[in-house]
């Protein structure tokens, strides 16, 4: 077996899969009993796929998202993101992983209230690679693409809900992640605005070839995703 073959094999593997969850289990002890939030979850997301994760409240979709994003460790199972196996990572390693490989758009508290839109994008670079002007150029580009060039110097309080959402998306893309996790991105928006945001998400992800998992319970929005995965009581059904 030549080296070239191995490289090709591994390269295509990591180029192929942004997220691979295998046999992931998450169990919480609650008042002496065990609550199973995730039960043998398997999920694969290709490098440029957008997957909708749909399920009722309490189904475990947030837990799954948190595990995929390196915010939570598993009780059992493997988690590989962008070719990196984070299953046994320490909190410090997870922190660095989140800096490098993942982008988040949360439902609540997405932006730092005392930073302008531009500064909210730059904070990622400040905390991590510190590329300085390269980051500033990228931030301005992203803001432009997101239609927020004239809002760069506004504080979150001065932006509408939709605009804040877009800034959050910009921030999630700043570190060129392998995977972006969206948690209910349209739940606080009306249909029209929601569709705009989903279009934006789809466009940005596809243009960059970035994978995304979109947690949603909104059926109107699932058609923007390549595939829908259902989750009920901690179990995934295709």
């Amino acid at each position, binding site marked *: 077996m030549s080296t070239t073959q191995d490289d090709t094999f591994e390269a295509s593997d990591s180029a192929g899969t942004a997220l691979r969850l295998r046999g992931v289990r998450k169990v919480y002890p609650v008042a002496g009993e065990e609550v199973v939030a995730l039960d043998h979850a398997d999920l694969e997301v290709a490098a440029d796929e957008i997957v909708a994760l749909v399920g009722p409240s309490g189904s475990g979709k947030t837990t799954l998202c948190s595990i995929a994003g390196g915010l939570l460790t598993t009780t059992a199972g493997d988690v590989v993101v962008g070719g990196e196996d984070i299953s046994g990572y320490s909190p410090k390693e997870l922190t660095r992983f989140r800096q490098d490989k993942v982008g988040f758009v949360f439902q*609540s*508290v997405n932006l730092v*209230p005392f930073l302008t839109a531009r500064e909210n994008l730059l904070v990622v670079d400040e905390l991590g690679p510190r590329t300085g002007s390269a980051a500033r150029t990228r931030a301005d580009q992203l803001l432009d693409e997101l239609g927020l060039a004239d809002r760069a110097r506004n504080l*979150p309080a001065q932006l509408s*809900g939709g605009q804040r959402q877009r800034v959050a998306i910009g921030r999630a893309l700043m570190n060129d992640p392998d995977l972006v996790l969206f948690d209910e991105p349209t739940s*606080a928006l009306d249909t029209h605005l929601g569709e705009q945001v989903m279009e934006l998400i789809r466009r940005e992800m596809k243009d960059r070839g970035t994978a995304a998992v979109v947690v949603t319970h909104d059926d109107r929005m699932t058609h923007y995703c390549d595939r829908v995965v259902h989750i009920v009581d901690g179990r995934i059904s295709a």
Partner: protein
Amino acid sequence: MKIALRELRRRPARFVTATVILTLVAVLVMFLGGLLDGLVRGATGALRAQDADVIVYSDTARSTFARSRVEADTRAAVEAVPGVARTGGIGLVQLGARVPGNGPRELAATALFGYELAPTRVPEPPAPGEVYADDVLRADGIEVGMEILLGPARSPVTVIGFVSDVSYSGQGSLWAEPGTWRDVVGANRPDVELPDDAFQALVVQADDGVDVQRLAEEIDDATGTTESLTTAEAIEEIPGVRAQRSTFNQIIGVTIAIAGVVVALFFALLTVERLSLYGVLKALGARSSTLFAGLVAQAVVVTAVASAVAGGLALLIDALIGPGSIPLDISGSRVLTSAALLLVAAVVGCAFSLRRVLRVDPAAAIGTGS
């Protein structure tokens, strides 16, 4: 307003911070005030007790007993001034007292007064060889009936009773008839000995309805060699009193300003936390003035509680610190005055949050959350 007070009752924890710090600041203010009061009390007791309207010193004395002398002829001139009802001679000598039962180097610091006209808290002059003692001297082991020895000459005097609040320049006083005083001076301080009909100063009682300020000037005009002061002025002239008062009051003033800034700071933080609540209330029809009044009410309650706790602590400190170590006199009125000043500072401090409260837009409260 009611909502504000209810918040205080239901969520006391968020006001704990400001209360704790304000309590500490209030204790400081009361402690400093008590220190000032104690120092001034200990310095001025003997003069405050005088039942007199004017004190007459010689004009080179710079209003101190020790450097003053008033001869018999000067006294006669003073008595001849219209408006003067009575005069009494008064003299002072500061000596260490040997108290039975104390060690050979443990002397009690005393100020022996020879007097003719009895001050308000002191009986008429006792018999020769007897003295009334300031009750602060109890801390030095002095008791009624005891014979104590004054000065290097060990002049004996017998304590026949105690009187209170008659200290002079921080020392406990002894009150004797003039002859006893002269004997003690002659034996111990021959350099300040005075002839039998001279005193260091005179205390003057004025006729009813006389303007004492004018009387003091007239006495000086009549004698040409005296400096007369009203009793209130004489008290201010006691060395150190004026300087202590101004210095302490400046420090107390700045400390109260600090309390105001603390209130401003912590209530500004609280206001930011409650902006959405204020928005909702305004949307429901509350006026800015009502909301601000609620804020002020909270600040007042917090400061009042802090002052009450501080008052208790201050009085406790006062009780624990024995007489003789630090001259502390924390009175109820000092506690109340301090509390009042702190309340004013607190209300002023609230003004910092006024603009924020005014600017809250009720429309923003109705809509999507953060």
